[in-house]
């Protein structure tokens, strides 16, 4: 899975442990390959252009130019855009909090304030600070809100971020592949405590999650 060993890390978007994060990582490697190649080809063409002699006639120059401009200026970017969107849009669609077949996703409310995360499970009444517990392989909907300024909820190894904006509630869908502890971090600048506004997501196996719920309630 990991093309490079240096890509792991507790907050690495390239070390995915959830479906959304994995899609984003794939998009990265795919686009890096495609766009990186284009970049190298363009650089090579420039290098050649600097070395080579002038065009023999003005008609020659005109032909080359048309070729370059239509090929490189129109066809190339349009093709690349279509290609990227063709892969990107379906993958992005799957990240959305769409209805889940056979049941409701687990709802967790997270309210941010300078500089902590208040986590609340509406169905069980469990309340936590700076810590989210979720079951593995289960879609989870995080209902994100803010009590003061704009914050952003981000667990890079599980999926993309979503802002928490006063007066609004945004819903972020996450799903983890394997049990473990994942780090989260506020991603929208929120004042002097921004750098330290962190949290962790503990992913349990199904049984472990039930045990944890019971343990907290007792």
């Amino acid at each position, binding site marked *: 899975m990991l093309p490079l060993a240096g890509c792991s890390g507790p907050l690495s*978007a390239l070390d995915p442990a959830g479906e959304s994060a994995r899609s984003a990582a794939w998009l990265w490697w795919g686009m890096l390959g495609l766009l990186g190649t284009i970049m190298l080809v363009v650089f090579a063409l420039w290098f050649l252009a600097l070395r080579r002699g002038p065009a023999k006639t003005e008609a020659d120059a005109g032909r080359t*130019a048309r070729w370059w*401009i239509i090929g490189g200026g129109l066809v190339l970017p349009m093709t690349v855009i279509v290609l990227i969107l063709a892969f990107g849009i379906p993958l992005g669609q799957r990240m959305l909090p769409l209805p889940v077949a056979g049941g409701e996703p687990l709802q967790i409310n997270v309210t941010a304030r300078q500089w902590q995360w208040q986590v609340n499970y509406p169905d069980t009444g469990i309340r936590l600070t700076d810590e989210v517990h979720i079951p593995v392989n289960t879609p989870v909907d995080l209902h994100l809100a803010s009590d003061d300024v704009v914050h*952003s909820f981000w667990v890079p190894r599980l999926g993309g*971020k*979503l*802002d928490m*904006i006063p007066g609004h509630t945004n819903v972020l869908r996450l799903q983890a592949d394997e049990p473990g502890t994942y780090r989260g971090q506020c991603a929208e600048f929120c004042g002097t405590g921004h750098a330290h506004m962190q949290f962790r997501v503990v992913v349990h196996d199904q049984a472990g999650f039930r045990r944890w719920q019971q343990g907290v309630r007792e």
Partner: protein
Amino acid sequence: MSQAPSAEQQARHDRFERVWGNRPGWGALSAVNHTTVGLRFLVTGLAFFLVGGLLAMLIRTQLALPEQEIIGADLYNQLFTMHGTVMMFLFAIPVLEGAAMYLIPKMIGARDLVFPRLSALGYFCYLFGGLIILSSLFLQIAPSSGWFMYTPLSSSEFSPGMGSDFWLLGITFVEISAISAGVELVVSILRSRAPGMSLQRMPLFAWYILAMALMIIFGFPPLILGSVLLELERAAGWVFFAVEGGGDPLLWQHLFWLFGHPEVYIIFLPAAGIVSTLIPVFAGRPIIGYRWVVLAIIMMGFVSFGLWVHHMFTVGIPQMAQAFFSVASMLVAVPTAIQIFVWLATLWAGKVRFHLPMLWVMGFLIVFVCGGLTGVMLALVPFNWQLHDTHFVVAHMHYVLVGGMLFPLVAGLYYWLPHVSGRMPSDSMGRWGFWLFFIGFNMTFLLMHLTGLLGMPRRVYTYEAGLGWDWLNLLSSVGGFVMAVGVATVILDIVLHFRFGRRAAPNPWQADTLEWAIPMPVNAYNFASIPEIRSRHPLWDQPELMQSIPAGEHRLSRIEDGRRDTIGSDAISGEAREVMHLPSNAWEPLVTAALLAGLCLSLLLKTYTLAVVFAVLALVACLRWSWVNGLHPRMAPRDRSGELPLHSRTTDGPGRWGMIVTLMADGTLFASLLFGWLYLWPVAPDWQMPEQSPLSVWGLLGSGLVLAGALGLWWRQVQGAVSVGGLGLVTGVGLVHCIALGLTAFDAGLAPGNSAHDSILAVVLAYLIFHSGLTVLLTGLQVFRVRHGYTSRALPYELRVLHPLWGYTVAVYWISVAVFLALPAAFGGGA
């Protein structure tokens, strides 16, 4: 000139210098000449660049190692806020405006910009505003909520100090210079080209600057409005962005990025213009695909206004909107790619001479293409959700901005240095500077992509060890310092070249554009005579211009009445239409800017009585300025009997064009206000629309009808019935309208402290009263000018200048009645 100028030529030069030169000593502060003002912009901008760079060095020092506490969180926040603010508002935009101001008249064959005093006003507003903003840093109360100033973090509750006020007031003050430069460049490019220079023959650089200037006109007003609203919220407790009371913090983000995204292209376009100018010169052939480039510029200008939401993909906006903005953001790759491949084709077909400026152009191509490609990546929404607000974006943005602006700027600096100094830059030291900068830059920012992918968010003042970011940050910091050494080398090289550079031959790079026909080092008046242009590449196709221009063989080769003048031409065909007489050295700009600085400072210190005094004095200064204008004998020469009329004796001079372009900016501000109303109404969570509008319908209709009546009377005056009595009557009726409007506003009993609805209405009313009042005041002034004979039936120029303002005032009045009164009534109150 290779041969020494003849005695006659020297005598002509001396006569021109007497009229066009600056005053000696302190009198130089009254200079309005575009060469002087443009160079002042450039030098001041470079000074601010060094300040911004110093802040970057401090940031990189703090981030070099994990868990450092050299700089605390609060100071760090001030540093990165100021780094962004200084680089964007005090360096990038003003420097490019300065370059455009310096180059445009020289490239299009004019002697000055068409509103020289406005350039000087813009410069002083920029200088004073910049110093006010910087002073906050030295007092350690600098703004600290980011250069994007997101509410509510920047609101009085979470940023109680003066920092945000410094930003909002200071930047708005600086923006005066941007808008004035925008107006000035648009009108100059359209109306003062050398005869025969049709749009088709215009140098590409002028196309780029025309697009940039128009984008300033449409791009800056949303930010100006946003800043004014946020300052009102902070200082007076009005409600626009606070949820409580019916505002929405997202409105700020929309207004900010409505400006913020076009701004990126406002910076990129002139830089790309430099590249499009240099590449053909060093390839020794005309650019291939001139029309393609013009098309790409226009497309870029339009598309860039449809991208702003891509800064907001993570705020939770509807999917359809995201898809639209995602596609639009990627589409901008098309005009960019067209330009890249036009440059490539030109190099391919030409014989490339590799001089120092070309090195920086190649640096630009590499760095900018790289940044453009990561831009395409970030435009993809699912990828953006991961990388938004990480160091990946920091890297991308620096690749685009440093690549797309700084590299071409330095290329341009080296290229046009001989023009200013008459000396060539050194080759070896310049190369050292380039490689140090280029290697340092890539070391800092290439690695930073990975830092972001590994999860490092932006705007954190420190980070834990062991997250995989340690070595990356250390190398980025080292690279940053290498880059700084590169900057120092380049500056040293440029400074030394003024002393040690070898003398430049005429047209040292064998360029095609007119500015190189000016003898070096540059003089005050550009062209001793203004030639007829018959080609897109005048110096390649009409090489005799190098001699015939200074020899006075073309138009306007004599100074008449001891006045400055240049040729006004048709906007499209470039045919000569009039002689534009231009103002000479003047103190009005400095005085007005100083009074506005006083206004800005007194608002900052919340001494509102003093603010009113400064505002009134500034208004008086502006009126005085406008009085000594048009056909005032100190401004206008006696009527001349030439083939071309004086512009003040026509009906369509530059003033009228300036008025129309200014109103385009003004209209954008008004449209942004409408946007705010139509946005908050359905979106803001706590928005309250009262059952019945607090404004009296009869008051508004009555006042509006009186205004329409005044317009009718005014119309007759403009149509030819110019008289003291007639204009007096217009003024009187207009005054009645103003009073009725004022009473209606007063009678409404708005409570802007409680609701966003009332706050917006209050702003709209203030806007309408301001415009009505201004229109009436300027019409009243015309009464006196008719009496002095500056305006008359035979000389209706000033009425023609004022005419669009009347139309605008009436239009915004009735649009406001429709949108703020009729629309809520139609959709039922309380919605």
